[in-house]
Structure formats: structure tokens, C-alpha cells
């Protein structure tokens, strides 16, 4: 008996092509894994059994007809619930969109389906992606599969938890300031934030339009590379004017040697207050492992990185306020009944539809965009963004990729950090990457010596060096013992293939 969680995406697709098992058997195994595990992880908001079995039947029919199968044929995937998929609701984990039926399918979701993937459903998140715990979901928190008393991180916490518990092989998340990489780190899976523009944002509910990027999470770098092939297939998306042609075979250079190539480390970041000793040790060990594989380690500096938090919370809040102004209860979303005027209906629909953090971010954005305040903060933040981008250009002139922590700590217990501003500070290692529009990836390297919880380290690359980033991520994966790891108390529980 093999549980579907033991197989890579490539093994699943190859097994279906070879007739070892059918796509329908894989879909049923994934549904069984979800049924026996999700009551503890609570990663899913909706399980799309009918869509999954229909897609799997289509794959099986294609094989029976002798057609060549696409690269993700029959691979179980699920999507963060800010991504539209026809036949499902897209709630953003908010009361505001609790009953919103997707009017169309997001390009990133469609491209996964076009590559043959089987859609298992929609995954929990912080409300409208505001947060780093998934505790701000209006429906329920999700739990970290390595310790269900702990948060999975966020905002793509459901995506990371579902992959870490082996409920699906690949999940999509979105990353505005670390929302793929941080939960991936806390849950011990690989999570990639592609270069801004590499993956279409069409159909992904907008948070910060100049920062948002969708990307894959998986238990193996190879699975993430396969997903990147699917997400970029077909090139630029005409429905997203910021998307760029980025189609290439991300598997082609996965196992290239990194001998003689350079990895930049930023010594000041490793001395920062609040960095847990076990995370510092794990990051230093990762540098040693890359050096052992032949890479040169060089010291570089990102002098404005510490202030990227300030710039980010200006830019992200202002963009969020602008984007979420569309939720007025008229065309879609929660509508307060019995209001006498449109203004009253908007104010009460928004008051009762949005949760506390969504209100906070919009209030901050509204203030920062107001007359007189705009120049003081918003314009300054856009100028500091220029300085941060220049810092990266100088660093990447000296190094092929940069290595740093993802999160200053491992996963923490639910409710342990309640001050919103304190949570914002934990994003220090991830947000400058979004500000500059570069690519980044979290790779699980070990369990913490003190906590015994997963630690990921982050690699960052320049814009459109996504394939290079995956090469270094694969080198790190080879040196560690975390490839394919399912959280121990979930591995093999349900999901048998035969």
C-alpha cells in the first residue's frame, strides 16, 4: 500500500501514464487523505470533490484514448481562496465574500488545470491576505501539521498546511510581503514567490497590486519547478498588463552544479535582534552546505532593508485601501439590509463584512493617502523603494543569489503574538523582495535544535532569475534531509492508492 503523500508530482503523472493507477484512484486517495487529516489541520475552506473527480475522469479518458498526458496529469492540487475557480466560492476567508461564487477562473489556476492537475478545493488564509498566522480567517484558524497547537504562518497558511500534511501534492499561494515563503518555512515545505510579472495576477483578488505575486508550494523543489512550468506556459497573459513572458523549462537546470557560483550573505541580518538562535544556526549551516557544494560565499549589504518594513506598510496599506474600496455591497459581497441611503449601506456593509485586520489596513491606507500626509509618507516610501531596489542591484552584481532567514522564529502557538504591529516586524526578511519585484524561495533545511519545528531558509534572486533560484534551492535540498517530508503525525494516514 502506498499513500499518495509519498509520491512526487512526477511520480504521480508517470504512474498514471504507465497505468499503475488511474487519475480517479489518485483523486479518491487525495480526498481520503483530506477526509482523515483536515479535521486537524483545518487547511481547507472548500473541498471540490465533484470538480476533482470530473477532472480525473477526463485525464483517464485521455489516457484510454491514447493521448499524450500533460506534465501534471492527475496531480492533486488546491488553491488559496483568493483565486477564482469556476464552480467554487472565492471567499478570501472573509464574511464579505462568504457566498461569492467565482465568475471566472484565474489564469494561474487555469494553467494548472491545463497542465492536467486535479483540483481538490480552496484553502484557508488570513482574511484578504492581511496577516502572517491564518488566525484572521473569518471562518476558523488553520493548524501547523508539525504541531497543531501552533500557527501554520500566513497569509497562505492553508496552502502550506495542506502540503505539509500531505493532503495535496502542490498548492498555490500568493505573496505580497512573504505570504508564500513564511508559511512554507513554518510548515517545512518549499514555497516560491516568483518574480513580479512572471505569473499572471488575473483572477487573484488584489491586495497590493504592485507587490502581489502568485506562486507554488510543494514538498520538493522539483514539484515547485513543475508548477512553475505550468504557471508560465503560454507566456504573457493578455488579461494582466503587468505579466511578462517568462515561459521556460524550469526543470532543465535544476541539477546544474553550483560550483564556482556565488551566494551572498548579509552579516548584519544574522545579528539582528529578535532572530532566534536556532534560525541563525540553520541559516549559517545552509551557507556552509552551499559552500561544500562548491559555491563561493561572499558578504554583501542591503543597507535599507531594515527600513523596508516602514516602506512596505505604507505601500501595501495604500494599495489595499484602493483595491478594497470596490467592496461596497452593491455588485457582490455582503450587503447590509434595510439601509436608507447608499452611504449608510456602504459603511455598514464594510463594517460588518470586514474583520478587524482588514479594517485596520484600510484605515491606515486611507489616512496615508489623505491630503498633506501623502507627501510625507507615501511619496517617501516610493523613493525608499528606489533605494531598496538599488541595494539589490548592487548586491546582485556581486552574488548570483542571496541567502537569509525567512522568519525570525519557528512557528508559535496560536494567540501568542496579539499585537498587530509586533507581527508586522516579523516580515523583515521577506518584504524587501516584494518591494523590488525580485524572486524568492523558502527551502526547508532542518528541524530547530530547540523547538523541533521546521526551519526554512530563504534564497533570493534578481528579477527573472527564477530558474537560477531553483537551481540553488535544489542544491540546498540535496544537502538537507527534508525532501518530500510530510509532517510525521500525518504521513501515510489515509490516502492509500490501492
Amino acid at each position, binding site marked *: 500500500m502506498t499513500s499518495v503523500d509519498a509520491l512526487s508530482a512526477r511520480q504521480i503523472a508517470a504512474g498514471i501514464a504507465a497505468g499503475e493507477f488511474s487519475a480517479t484512484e489518485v483523486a479518491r486517495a487525495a480526498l481520503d487523505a483530506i477526509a482523515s487529516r483536515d479535521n486537524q489541520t483545518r487547511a481547507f475552506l472548500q473541498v471540490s470533490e465533484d470538480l476533482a473527480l470530473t477532472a480525473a475522469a477526463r485525464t483517464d479518458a485521455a489516457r484510454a484514448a491514447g493521448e499524450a498526458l500533460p506534465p501534471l496529469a492527475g496531480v492533486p492540487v488546491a488553491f488559496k481562496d483568493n483565486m477564482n475557480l469556476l464552480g467554487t466560492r472565492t471567499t478570501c476567508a472573509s464574511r464579505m465574500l462568504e457566498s461569492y461564487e467565482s465568475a471566472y477562473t484565474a489564469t494561474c489556476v487555469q494553467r494548472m488545470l491545463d497542465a492536467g492537475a486535479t483540483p481538490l478545493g480552496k484553502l484557508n488564509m488570513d482574511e484578504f491576505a492581511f496577516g502572517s498566522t491564518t488566525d484572521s480567517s473569518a471562518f476558523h484558524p488553520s493548524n501547523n501539521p508539525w504541531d497543531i497547537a501552533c500557527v501554520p504562518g500566513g497569509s497562505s497558511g492553508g496552502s502550506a498546511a495542506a502540503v505539509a500534511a500531505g493532503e495535496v501534492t502542490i498548492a498555490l499561494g500568493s505573496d505580497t510581503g512573504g505570504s508564500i515563503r513564511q508559511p512554507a518555512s513554518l510548515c517545512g515545505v518549499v514555497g516560491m514567490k516568483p518574480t513580479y510579472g512572471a505569473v499572471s495576477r488575473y483572477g487573484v483578488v488584489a491586495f497590493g497590486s504592485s507587490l502581489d505575486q502568485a506562486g507554488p508550494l510543494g514538498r520538493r523543489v522539483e514539484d515547485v519547478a513543475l508548477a512553475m512550468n505550468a504557471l508560465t506556459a503560454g507566456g504573457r497573459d493578455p488579461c494582466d498588463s503587468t505579466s511578462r513572458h517568462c515561459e521556460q523549462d524550469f526543470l532543465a537546470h535544476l541539477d546544474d552544479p553550483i560550483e564556482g557560483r556565488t551566494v551572498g550573505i548579509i552579516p548584519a541580518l544574522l545579528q539582528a535582534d529578535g532572530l532566534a538562535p536556532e534560525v541563525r544556526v540553520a541559516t549559517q549551516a545552509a551557507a556552509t552546505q552551499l559552500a561544500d557544494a562548491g559555491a563561493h560565499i561572499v558578504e554583501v549589504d542591503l543597507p535599507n532593508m531594515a527600513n523596508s518594513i516602514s516602506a512596505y506598510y505604507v505601500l501595501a496599506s495604500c494599495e489595499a485601501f484602493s483595491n478594497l474600496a470596490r467592496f461596497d455591497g452593491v455588485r457582490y459581497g455582503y450587503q447590509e439590509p434595510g439601509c436608507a441611503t447608499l452611504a449608510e449601506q456602504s459603511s455598514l456593509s464594510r463594517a460588518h463584512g470586514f474583520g478587524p485586520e482588514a479594517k485596520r489596513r484600510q*484605515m491606515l491606507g486611507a489616512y496615508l493617502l489623505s491630503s498633506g500626509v501623502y507627501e510625507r509618507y507615501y511619496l517617501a516610501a516610493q523613493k525608499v*523603494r528606489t533605494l531598496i531596489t538599488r541595494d539589490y542591484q548592487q548586491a546582485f552584481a556581486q552574488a548570483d543569489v542571496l541567502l537569509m532567514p525567512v522568519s525570525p522564529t519557528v512557528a508559535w502557538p496560536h494567540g501568542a503574538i496579539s499585537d498587530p504591529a509586533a507581527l508586522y516586524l516579523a516580515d523583515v526578511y521577506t518584504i524587501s523582495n516584494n518591494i523590488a519585484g525580485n524572486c524568492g524561495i523558502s527551502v526547508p533545511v532542518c528541524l530547530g535544535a530547540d523547538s523541533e519545528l521546521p526551519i526554512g531558509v530563504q534564497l533570493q534572486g534578481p528579477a527573472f532569475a527564477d530558474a537560477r533560484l531553483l537551481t540553488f534551492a535544489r542544491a540546498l535540498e540535496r544537502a538537507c534531509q527534508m525532501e518530500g517530508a510530510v509532517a510525521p503525525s500525518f504521513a501515510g494516514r489515509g490516502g492509500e492508492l490501492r
Partner: protein
Amino acid sequence: MPLTKQDVAGIAEYARIALSDAELDEMTDYMNDAIELLDPLLEYDLDGVEPTFHPIGELVNVTRDDVVTAGLSLDEALANASNVRDRAFRVPAILSGGDES
């Protein structure tokens, strides 16, 4: 100077988010904490630094051929609305004291 509760009430009105009295107190504390977090931006001398409004700075005027493509049907566009009449979204009076119809 920190924001007062009255300032925050004004912002809430502008942002169209009705806040209760207790929520206004909490929001005022939050806003002042969050604004303090932005202080490092004020310490920069940014004269001569151009702003970056978008990570793809050189990308301008993305256009496509002027051809008709399919969009949502009327029924699809109205499907998620709470209040629809005569093939249109229905809203209460725009001006206070008006009649809803």
C-alpha cells in the same frame, strides 16, 4: 502629533467603515502605533531620488489590438449581487432623504 479619536472618526467616514465607539478607541491606538512604525521614512534625505511606483519601471502603455472579446454575460455579472431589478444593480437613495426607487 498623535491622531485623536476625532481624527480617526473622520478617516473612518472617508473610508466608509462604520466604527463603534469602542472600535474607534482601539483603532486610534492601532493607528498611532502603526504610524510610529513608519518613522524611519522621515529620517531620509530623499532629495533627488526618483520614486518607484511599480517594480516594472520601464513598462509603459500596454495595449492590445482593438478587437471585441467575450466578457461576462449580463446574468453572470449580476449573479453575485444581493439586490437586482430590471437587469441592473439596485441601490438605496444616493442622497439622504430620497426615495429608494
